[in-house]
């Protein structure tokens, strides 16, 4: 039996030793976590584990015992999106949207560690996500805009 938090709610269960967090989340219809490859190469499968961004397809369920897992579903409350999501919309940082949840989780992971990042730091934070339509310039602008607006507060 293992137990963990998923988006604030405690979960307990038995899992086959080979099951990954990615398999589990898709079974739970958490579809923001996308299939890219099973090897973590694309980053589209990102989640936060204890606040740090990681590839869910490289995490065995047994290894997340006692951990806190977050997906983008925990960021918005109904129709109210998170200000970081808002910044992505305002900056036109979303085209097909496939990697967008992972980009936002990667940015959030960075911002929890460093609330006032510079441009290079933001670029580096997106290094594990492949985007093949929007590119990276607009998402970087969105993250910088959000980070700066928080500083101003």
């Amino acid at each position, binding site marked *: 039996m293992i137990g963990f938090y998923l988006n604030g709610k405690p979960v307990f269960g038995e899992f086959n*030793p*080979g099951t*990954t967090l990615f398999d589990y989340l898709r079974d739970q219809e958490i579809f923001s976590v996308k299939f890219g490859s*099973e*090897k*973590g*190469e694309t*980053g589209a499968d*990102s989640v936060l*584990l204890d606040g*740090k*961004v*990681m*590839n869910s*397809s*490289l*995490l*065995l369920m*047994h*290894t997340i*015992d006692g951990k806190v897992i977050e997906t983008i579903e925990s960021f918005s409350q109904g129709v109210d999106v998170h200000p970081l999501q808002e910044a992505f919309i305002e900056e036109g940082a979303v085209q097909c949207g496939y990697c967008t949840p992972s980009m936002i989780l*990667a940015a959030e*992971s*960075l911002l929890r560690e460093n609330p006032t990042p510079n441009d290079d730091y933001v670029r*580096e*934070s997106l*290094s*594990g*996500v*492949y985007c093949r339509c929007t590119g990276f310039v607009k998402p970087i602008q969105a993250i910088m805009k959000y980070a700066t607006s928080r500083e101003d507060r």
Partner: protein
Amino acid sequence: MKYYTPSSLSELNDLFLQTNNSKITILSGGTDILPRWEEGITLPKHLIDLKKINSISGIVEHDNKIIIGALTTVQDIYKSELIKTKYTALHQAASQFAGVQIRHRATIGGNICNASPAGDLLPGLYVHNAMIELTGPNGTRKLPINKCITGVGKTTLNNNEIVSAVILEKTEELSVFYKLGLRQSMAISVVNFAIAYRQTSPNLFDLQSIAAGAVAPTVVYLKEFTKAVNEGLPLEKAISLIEHDISPIDDIRASADYRKTVLKNLLTHKLKELYV
């Protein structure tokens, strides 16, 4: 597959004795093992996850040594000020290692045991003469990294041993790391190398060692070349001496010829930067 999470080295040793002679796989970060399972390699009978053994995680200073626990993540190595200032090649390698997601999970012990010729942390460990601490029911022993890794995916670890720590001597040597991948992040190295050197006067350097990856079955020291440069042979003449120590192959990322040429060019370029 049975899954175990020992929380101390003594619990791990007990497990080794219980599961004697059967197929065991050791799990650290899992960023190299899980992709292999996805490729269809069968699951092991016993999977021992080390992540709850807190005593082999983290970076500590000890007299004239730095001890890096095997479970220390690549991201923790990247963020360490001590590594950045004293073992720059290792810091630079960590900064270019895969992407943030993998760096948060992958460990230095795993990078050593995976024994990839292209493993990015390895050249930095070679030029800083890292000693690898191995632990098992029969006690602890230490080996220089080049005696620990013996081939592609091959190490001298016994079945009931794990890498528990990496030990680096404190040194005045400086170092740099360079990696050529097919893109800036999430790329396996086409070639990589690290250079350790001593600054003898403002514009004069004494090369200590150079180690290159992805040009032979293991990371190799470029001994002949290093010696010739220190004896004053011009770089342009000395550079062909790297061929004594390398044996690159053609693969999906590059041809053997390309690897040889690009290593020569990049090494010459980097050394010229140092000597300016």
